[in-house]
């Protein structure tokens, strides 16, 4: 513990947090508390009499024995793990390419990050156009080089197609983070290795990659957190179908709540996926923020 005399302290700064705390209460804590209560009731919107009927843990039992629920967990995990793995590779390749010095690099890099700012719902929409089995561009490309057409949105392929779409959208994020990481690379070590006769690939493999590992981990952690709640793109592309083939946790909850209008059940689902997500992401967030809470001088006292 460091001990140093502190200048006069004006605790009025604490008041500055009040609006933020109020917003968090209103939109995070109150809804969670409400759904905790609803989750033990049998409330179905279409049957008003069921509103305050306490059924205790029936809803939870209902969800946890629902094969569709477990299928959504599986879909979400496959989507997240496969997506993050492929995006790491693609992002690494892109970062190594965009590290080169060439004319117009700034503009080209900006173009490259457009997929991540384009409205995700719109992304899902135009991938549907591309995946069209008969008229889509991808099947045209495949068949014109002699390969068979792929039923992109059929139950066997839909999840793969959703993952490809996500890789397209999110690889630039990995590229950006890795490019930032490359800026801090030890240039002298690279220089020395080159003088000692190391090839470009050896430099990349023995120096650059190990240096990038923490950056890769950070990008992957962020992306994994977002992937776990994926909704927009998949809603627009497949609506979770065919069947449950691409129903992520969020889409499962959506179907229960806004197609079935079963408030009790969706409240139980909400709590289950909230807890599941927190179990996975809390360590990730703690990892991401590790060491940074202490601050490094600056305004901090």
């Amino acid at each position, binding site marked *: 513990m460091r001990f140093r005399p502190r200048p006069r302290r004006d605790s009025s700064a604490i008041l500055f947090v009040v609006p933020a705390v109020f*917003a968090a209460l209103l939109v995070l804590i109150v809804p969670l508390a409400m759904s905790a209560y609803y989750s033990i009731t049998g409330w179905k919107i279409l049957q008003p009499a069921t509103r305050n009927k306490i059924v205790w843990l029936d809803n939870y039992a209902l969800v946890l024995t629902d094969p569709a629920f477990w299928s959504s967990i599986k879909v979400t995990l496959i989507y997240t793990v496969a997506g993050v793995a492929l995006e790491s590779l693609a992002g690494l390749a892109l970062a190594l390419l965009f590290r080169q010095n060439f004319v117009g690099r700034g503009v080209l890099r900006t173009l490259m990050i*457009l997929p991540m700012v*384009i*409205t995700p*719902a719109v992304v899902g929409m135009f991938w549907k156009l591309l995946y069209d089995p008969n008229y889509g561009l991808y099947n045209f490309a495949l068949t014109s080089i002699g390969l068979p057409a792929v039923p992109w949105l059929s139950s066997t392929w839909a999840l793969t197609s959703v993952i490809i779409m996500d890789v397209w959208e999110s690889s630039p994020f990995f590229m950006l983070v890795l490019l930032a990481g490359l800026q801090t690379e030890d240039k002298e070590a690279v220089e020395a290795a080159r003088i000692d006769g190391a090839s470009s690939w050896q430099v990349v493999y023995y120096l650059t990659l190990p240096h990038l590992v923490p950056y890769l981990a950070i990008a992957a952690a962020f992306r994994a957190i977002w992937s776990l709640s994926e909704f*927009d793109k998949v809603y627009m592309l497949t609506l979770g179908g065919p069947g449950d083939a691409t129903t992520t946790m969020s889409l499962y909850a959506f179907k229960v709540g806004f197609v079935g209008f079963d408030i009790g059940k969706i409240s139980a689902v909400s709590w289950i*996926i909230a807890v599941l997500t927190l179990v996975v992401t809390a360590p990730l967030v703690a990892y991401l923020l590790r060491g940074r809470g202490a601050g490094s001088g*600056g*305004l*901090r006292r």
Partner: protein
Amino acid sequence: MRKFLCLVAVVVLVFVYLFPYTWMVLSAFRYPADTFAIPPKLFFEISFDGFRNVFRQSVFGLYLMNSLIITLFSVAITMLVATPAAYALVRISRGGTAFLLTVLIARMIPAIALVVPIYIIGNLTRQLDTYQIMIVVTVAFNLPFAIWMVRGFFLDLPANLVDAARIDGASEWQVLTQVAAPLARGGIFATSVFVFVGAWNEFLFALILTSGRTTTATVALLSFRTSQGIEWDTISAGAFMVSLPVIVFAFIMQRYLVEGLTMGAVK
């Protein structure tokens, strides 16, 4: 020579990479028959039917306006709430960090888990399909990251500047508004660019909490899927108009956007 080859390779790569989006933009400007021609047509008759349909079949102008109103108010309020909060968290040591960590972790809960009770609250208070509910929800969802980012920029400021102002008798509020915030304005701006993109692209809350009067343009796209199928020229024209603002914005603000996107990761 090597540099030139590299440039050519990257230009080709970027062109191919963006082609999925380009294809949709092209579809907005041509007759559906041309979009679905096999083999695909490189040259086609330009048509503005899609754009005409968008505005004839729905009040798309209103929906775009709704998106803009909700986004601008959300960005302004988020930054007005986040900046003092971030400042306070930098100044009030440990408890603040724990609080921020809790909020950031709570923010990881998928939005869908919160939207049903929010819908019920909106229903009880008769606030469904209003700008207020959309703005409050958007602000609350963007706050944790905004606070986190602005806090990072405040941490970069030299401490003696603030201490000097404090010794001269300035209150915390004066230090914030006259010293800290002006010094960190680049970072605050970077954060608001980030919030803008998030707020404009928001889909799930608008899908559930709005119905007609305050529907955003993103959600309005769904109405172009009819029982006969999707009218691709119309929906593409609508989607083009929805995505154009963020793309233009991304270009103008690219320095800030890159800073925002990598800051959380690299700081």
